[in-house]
Structure formats: structure tokens, C-alpha cells
């Protein structure tokens, strides 16, 4: 064969390989990247709605129908109806003006017509409805209603997560709205200064206050060799560089070790711990516990953040140590942290979509719980559990003490310039074999409700869920 002919052959092979590569890459996109692309909020198709088909239902874990579609002669197409979804409004979402919540993230599922050819043919011959797939959530409407009731007029959020799986049984955000009337009241809802449309549980960023002492404690355990024998004499306040740290009500806690100080939620002690470990070590622990990354979820989430480093001033460091400063977390993320402590340090990926059924009620997809990350080792998780039990038994969390099981938890009171303190409780129960983790935040709590009490009642009612029926 002549040289140039051989070269032509080689060039041809090279050209063909380029196109094979394109084809392979296309397959990759459709098989691996498809899900993420479909639900991306920048994808305009997320708002597409085909009113000629019956959009699938959104149901709670027991089958209660939150959202369904009904044919309307007037509209000449299907319209969306909501039923008992007020307490779950941010989770279920809306379709009236844009889309939000599960209505947005599962839009393609709800609009996906399973066995479309069969359904269309059947519809053509027998006049049956062409129906999209329905979504079963992991939340329980009874728990949603209960949490809403317990929160009363307070703004804030409640999250209950199953420890072994990451399943979200309750996710409530207040204030709420009626998903049925979103389109009509869009202007007032959108501009409402209380932002009822925002899912505070997954997207609300709050100063954690004392619940952040969990991180400071882990950082101390990891970085201070004699941490358990270290004691400090709390006088109710302490001077640091350009900053005076006060304990709650300026109460002096006296000489205490880390367990006492955690139970008392002593600001002075934890500020001193912060200065002992240093800003870089504290931030590193926070990073390792995903406090600068967050955890993925089926709905939109905001990422938590902890911003201290070696350049931070001492006042920034001590503020961060007690959960003030520029530290921000979401209630969902704190629930995941409590879940991890209860689960030997293993964080499960939280999820709210339980399974998906087709037009024939046949299950076509079920969420399998998955490990997301290992944020603590077993010894650290065990120590935190002990400390969180002490919080309930002899510390600030006495309101969460239950007659039926041992609760473990941590309270928090987050100062914020915009009004009353935010009240926090994160914890889990039963402490010896944890089933559920809880995270409660009351925004600018007015004293009409208590985060620890809500947490206790939510834990009790989740563990005894059958009694609610």
C-alpha cells in the first residue's frame, strides 16, 4: 500500500473515533447527568406544564393526597387542587405562579406519563385519563399538623429525621400560605416581609447560637489532649481582646469541666475552648463536619457557613465558638448533624421522596437510604451523646425531659440584631437506641412556645406515630 493511502486510512479511523466519542458522551449525559439537569432551577422546562394530561398526585407517607389534578370544563384542561396541604405548603409547593417545592423538583415525575403509548391508546379507545406518576413523600401529615399547632404564631421551622435512614418525617416552616391561592395572592405573598413562600427548614439561614457548641466541643476533643480534665472557673463574664463574653443572664457557673459547661451552655467556658484550639482548628472541624458545605436534599437548600481562619481576630474567634458571629446554619442541616451524632457519626443523606407510583399504583421507583458522610468517629459521637443527655438531665434542656424515654439534645439562644433571640433545640431520642432526630428553631421567639417542649412532643409523637391515627 502506498504511504498516502495508508495515511488516509489512519485519518479516517481518527475521524471516526472522534464521532464515537461524541456518541459515548451523549449516552453519558442521558444516563448519568440527566436527573440533575432536569431539576436544575435554571432549566426553563421545570416550569412547563401540560394541562392536557392529569398531573400525578403528591401524597404523604400514609397516602393522604396533598395535591391532585382535576379536569375543568371551564379551563379546558386539568387544574391543580390542594387538600390539607397548608401545614406542608413549602414542602408540597405550588404550581400557580412558577413552581416550588416538590411540585418543582418532581415536576418531570409528576408529568411523566408511564407507558405513554398504552395510556394514550386506552384514552383514545375508552376515554380514560392520561395520568402522570404520583409521588409519595416521607412526611406524615399528622406530624406536620402537630408541629404547626405546637409552633403557634411563631415563625421558624421544625424538622424530624429518622436516625437510621435519613428519612424526613416532618418538615414544617412557618408562617404558611394556602397553596391553592398562590396565583391570586402572588403579589402580596411575594412581597410579604415574613417570606411565607420560603421553606425555612431547608433554606432559612439562622445564627446557631449555643447549638454550635457541638462543633466547638468536637474541635476541643480533637485538638486538646487533656480536654476532659480541663476545668475553668466561670464568673458569668470574661474579657477577651475587644470583646466581653457574657453567660446567659450573666450567671456565673463556677468551676466546671467540658461536660458541665456543655450542660450549662456556658459561653465563657466555650469561648476559652475556642481560644485554646484556635480559629484554624475550629474552622477545620467545622469543615470536617460539613458546616461549610451542607448536605444535598430533594428540595432546594441553602449552604451553612462558618467563617473563621488564622486571620480572624480573637473577638471573631470567641463569637464563633459560641455560635454567634458570621456563622449560619439551616434547621435541616442541624437535624442532619443530630442524626449523625445519634448514628455513630454517620450522616445519612436526608430525603423526602419515599417512592413513586405510576397510573396503575405500581411502584416504579423507591428511594434507598444512603450514607452521605462520616462526620464524627464513634468515640466522639458517643461522648457527644453523653454530654447531650446531661443537657436534658441537669442542664438547660430540662424542658425536653420526657417521662417515656431519655432525650439527648442541645439548646440554643441565638442573639440577633433584628429583634428577639432565636430559640433552638436539636437532639434525638431515645438516647440509648436513637430512632429520631429533631431540630427546632423559633425565629425571634416571643416566649409563647418553647423549642425544647416542641422537640419533646415531636419526638414522643413520632415514636408513637400510630397513636395519632
Amino acid at each position, binding site marked *: 500500500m502506498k*504511504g*498516502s*493511502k*495508508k*495515511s*488516509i*486510512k*489512519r*485519518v*479516517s479511523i481518527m*475521524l*471516526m473515533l*472522534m*464521532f464515537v*466519542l*461524541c*456518541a459515548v*458522551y*451523549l*449516552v453519558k*449525559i*442521558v444516563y448519568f*447527568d*440527566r436527573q*440533575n*439537569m*432536569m431539576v*436544575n432551577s*435554571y*432549566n*426553563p*422546562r421545570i416550569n*412547563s406544564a401540560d394541562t*392536557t394530561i392529569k398531573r400525578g398526585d403528591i401524597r404523604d407517607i400514609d397516602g393522604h393526597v396533598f395535591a391532585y389534578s382535576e379536569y375543568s370544563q371551564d379551563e379546558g384542561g386539568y387544574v391543580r387542587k390542594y387538600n390539607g396541604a397548608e401545614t406542608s405548603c413549602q414542602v408540597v409547593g405550588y404550581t400557580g405562579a412558577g413552581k416550588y417545592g416538590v411540585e418543582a423538583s418532581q415536576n*418531570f415525575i409528576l408529568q411523566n406519563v408511564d407507558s*405513554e*403509548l398504552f395510556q*394514550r*391508546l386506552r384514552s*383514545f379507545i375508552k376515554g380514560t385519563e*392520561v395520568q402522570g406518576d404520583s409521588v409519595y413523600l416521607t412526611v406524615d401529615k399528622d406530624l406536620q399538623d402537630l408541629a404547626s399547632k405546637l409552633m403557634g404564631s411563631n415563625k421558624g421551622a421544625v424538622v424530624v429525621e429518622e436516625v437510621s435512614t435519613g428519612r424526613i418525617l416532618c418538615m414544617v416552616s412557618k408562617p404558611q400560605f394556602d397553596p391553592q391561592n398562590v396565583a391570586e395572592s402572588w403579589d402580596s405573598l411575594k412581597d410579604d416581609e415574613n417570606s411565607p413562600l420560603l421553606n425555612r427548614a431547608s433554606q432559612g439561614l439562622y445564627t446557631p447560637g449555643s447549638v454550635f457548641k457541638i462543633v466547638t466541643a468536637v474541635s476541643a476533643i480533637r485538638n486538646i489532649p487533656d480536654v476532659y480534665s480541663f476545668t475553668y472557673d466561670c464568673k458569668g463574664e470574661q474579657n477577651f481582646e475587644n470583646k466581653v463574653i457574657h453567660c446567659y443572664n450573666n450567671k456565673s457557673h463556677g468551676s466546671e469541666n467540658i461536660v458541665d459547661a456543655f450542660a450549662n451552655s456556658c459561653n465563657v467556658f466555650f469561648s476559652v475552648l475556642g481560644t485554646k484550639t484556635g480559629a484554624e482548628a475550629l474552622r477545620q472541624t467545622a469543615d470536617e463536619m460539613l458546616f461549610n458545605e451542607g448536605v444535598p436534599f430533594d428540595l432546594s437548600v441553602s449552604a451553612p457557613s462558618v467563617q473563621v481562619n488564622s486571620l480572624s481576630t480573637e473577638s471573631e474567634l470567641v463569637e464563633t465558638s459560641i455560635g454567634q458571629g458570621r456563622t449560619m446554619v439551616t434547621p435541616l442541616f442541624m437535624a442532619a448533624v443530630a442524626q449523625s451524632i445519634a448514628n455513630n457519626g454517620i450522616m445519612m443523606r436526608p430525603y423526602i421522596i419515599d417512592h413513586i407510583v405510576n397510573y396503575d399504583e405500581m411502584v416504579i421507583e423507591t428511594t434507598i437510604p444512603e450514607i452521605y458522610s462520616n462526620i464524627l468517629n464513634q468515640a466522639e459521637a458517643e461522648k457527644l451523646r453523653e454530654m447531650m443527655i446531661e443537657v436534658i438531665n441537669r442542664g438547660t434542656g430540662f424542658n425536653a425531659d420526657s417521662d417515656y424515654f431519655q432525650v439527648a439534645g442541645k439548646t440554643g439562644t441565638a442573639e440577633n440584631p433584628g429583634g428577639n433571640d432565636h430559640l433552638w433545640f436539636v437532639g434525638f431520642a431515645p438516647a440509648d437506641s436513637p430512632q429520631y432526630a429533631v431540630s427546632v428553631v423559633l425565629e425571634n421567639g416571643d416566649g409563647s412556645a418553647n423549642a425544647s417542649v416542641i422537640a419533646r412532643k415531636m419526638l414522643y409523637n413520632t415514636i408513637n406515630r400510630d397513636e395519632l391515627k
Partner: protein
Amino acid sequence: MFDLLIIISRYLFVIYIAVFLYNGTAYLLDEAGLTRHSHRRSIFTCRTMTALMHITAFLILSYDRQAITYSIPYLLIGAAGFVFIIMSNFVAEKVYKGGCPLIWNCVIFLLDTGIIMLVRLNFPLAVRQLVWICVGFFVTMWIPVFVKMVPKFEKLESVYIILSFMLIISTLVLGSKEYGSRNWIHMGKLSFQPSEIVKFLYIFYLASVFRKKVNLKEFIITAFLSALLVILLVFQKDLGSALIFFMTYMVMLYISTSNELLFFSGIGALSVGSVIAYRLFSHVRVRVAAWKDPWADIDSGGYQICQSLFAIGTGGIFGSGLTRGMPLSIPVVSKDFIFAAICEEFGTIYAICLIGVFMLLFIRGMMIAFQCRRRYYSIIAAGFTAMMAFQTFLIIGGVIKLIPLTGVTLPFVSYGGTSILVSILAVSFIQWVNGYQKASEGNEVPNT
């Protein structure tokens, strides 16, 4: 009922293109002497598939849902398209007696896919596209005559390269910007991209130089002039054309010298050049950043590519069905991003098969180059094939984020008069070479 038709059509389109591809491949294997099939039947089946695809698509496209009736202008354009499919095959075979029917089939299939997509996206553009296609075929008919008139056109290398430079430089003076690249010239109502015309001149130039053994001096001059051309294009921000020119040069150089060392040092030079261009030009950095992580900058730099990926991903393997997707949310969808629109509505299987149709076309082109015994024509056929192949790869790879995006058109499919003309003419030259080879097979032609 109508939805039922669209649902079924999703599978029909896949069947049409799969059968087309199967028969095209059978023909190709035959032509390569590997199997023995009926040529005639393969070719006839391919044509039937094109016609069926056209009819199915226009049954969907011309239906007006609001009025519950068929729209006359759409039906007319559909009928005109159908007449074109029949006529073009007929005319092409009359004019190019030795031309390869598979190539015409692939070209017409691709052109028709483009027309269907354009009717769906933007009706007036589709009408103009059809006119351009007809103009293209009309011009094509005169190429054999033109080649006969200028028998010594392999001796005009200096004319080609001088004209090339004049055209490229003219855009610097007269050009206007479109999508960030200064590579268009407007003359009254007409506008064209000089770099598209230079593609021809450049390939003729290289073939003229490489038709005989090149000495070192000739080699250096060619390399220098080619590099200068590429650099000028980079300065005009026409990265796509710059890459196409460079790769075409490399391929033609390799085919005529068979020197791997030269080829790989060329690729090395490309890498070095890319790094320099990356450092030097912000528009190169923007493209690369948008390719590496489009999601990070989804509001500006990564917007186009993200919208393209959304369309491809949402469409899925069988697509949304013709008219049921949202391809209009993709920027420049009728030109650079038409492949993403095809992926969305026809589905990934169809899109992969469409890549297969391009592959058939290019393999056949390369086979013609391989079979042709006159070196000059062989190099021309290889050059045109490689040029179109690189252009196809650049834009398909770009819209699926396999490689950084360079704004070039998808040959035969994208909207654009210049693009359509150039693609049809390029194929015509390849066909002419095949005809020449077939005609000369009886009487031995000395290798030159």
C-alpha cells in the same frame, strides 16, 4: 388523538433513521468489497426512509392545535420539501454521473432533518433555508462545467492563497460583529462569512502544493502562511474556523507526507498555541471556563452551554416528541445549537444515529479519496471530507460539552446560506472526484 400521533412518531423517527443507517452501512460495506448486497435496494430504502420521515414530520408540524386544522403554508413548504427530495436526487445523478448515491442520500437526509427542525423552530427561516438549498443545488450543477473550463486549476496555488488572505483581511476592515466574532461582511442586504469561502481556496491551495513532493522551502512557506491564516482568524475571535483550518492543514500535510513525526509535532504546536491563546485572549478563557464548569457561571458565560445541556438531558433517549419540547429556550438554536434541539425533540438515540449518518458521509468521502489514483484529486477529496468532519465534531462536541464551544455551524443542518452553500459545494467536489475516478478507471491515468 394528535398526541398519540406524536408519541408514535417518536419511535417512527428512530426506526426511519435506524433503517437508513443500516442500509447505508450495507451499501458502504458493499462498496468496500466486504459484502455482496443489492446496491439498488439499499439506496432505494434509504430514500424511502427520508421521504417517510419528511411526511411524518410535516403531518405533525403543519397541524394547528388551536384551529384544529392543517395550516396551508406549512403543508406547502412540506410539499416543496418533498419535491426537492425527489428532484435533487434525480438532478444530482444526472449531473454527477459517477457520483456516489449514498453521499447524496446522506446529504439530503441531513438537509431534511435541518428543514424539519427549522420549520418547528422558526418558519420564515425554514423557507429561506429551502431557497438556499435550491440555490446550492443549482450552483452545484455547474461545477463539472467549471472544472472543465479551468483544466489547470491545480497550478493556481498563489492565486488561491492571495485571495484567501485578501478575504480574511477584508473582514478586519469591512467586517461587522456577530455573536462576538468579527467575521461577517454585509453588502446591502446580503451578508456572508468570508472564512467560509476561504475554506475552498485554502483546500485548493494546499492540494496544489501537496500534489507533488514538497521540498523544505515549500514546506516552510506553506506552514508559515497557514499559521498566519490561523492566527488572523484567532484575532477575529473566529476560533472555530481557526481550528478547522489548522486541523485540515494537519490532515492534508499528513496524507501527502505520511510523516507521523510532523503530524504529532503539529498537534504539539496546537497545544502550545492553545496555551498561548488562552493566556493572551480573554474570549478564549471565557470559552474554556464555560466548558470546564458551566454551572458555576450559569448566568453569563455558561448560559448557552447549560441551556443546551438542559435540552439534551430533559429530552432523554426518545426525546420529548416533535413540537413538545422547549428548544426555543436554547440560544442561537437555529444555527450553532440546532443539534441540542434535535436531541431534545427527537431523542438521544436519533441524535446518535444522526452522528452515524455524518460518519457514513465522511467514511464514504475518505473512501473516495482512498480510491482516487490521481494524487491532486485524492488530496482534495480528503481535504474537504476532513474539513467537514472537523466542523461537525467541533459543533456537536461543543453543544454536548465534550470540548469547549466554538461557534461554527453544523454542516447541512444549521440555518445559514453560506454554510449550506459551502457544505453542498464541498460535497459536490468530492462527488466530482468520484466521477472522475470512475470515468478514468478504464484508461489508465498516470499517478502525478
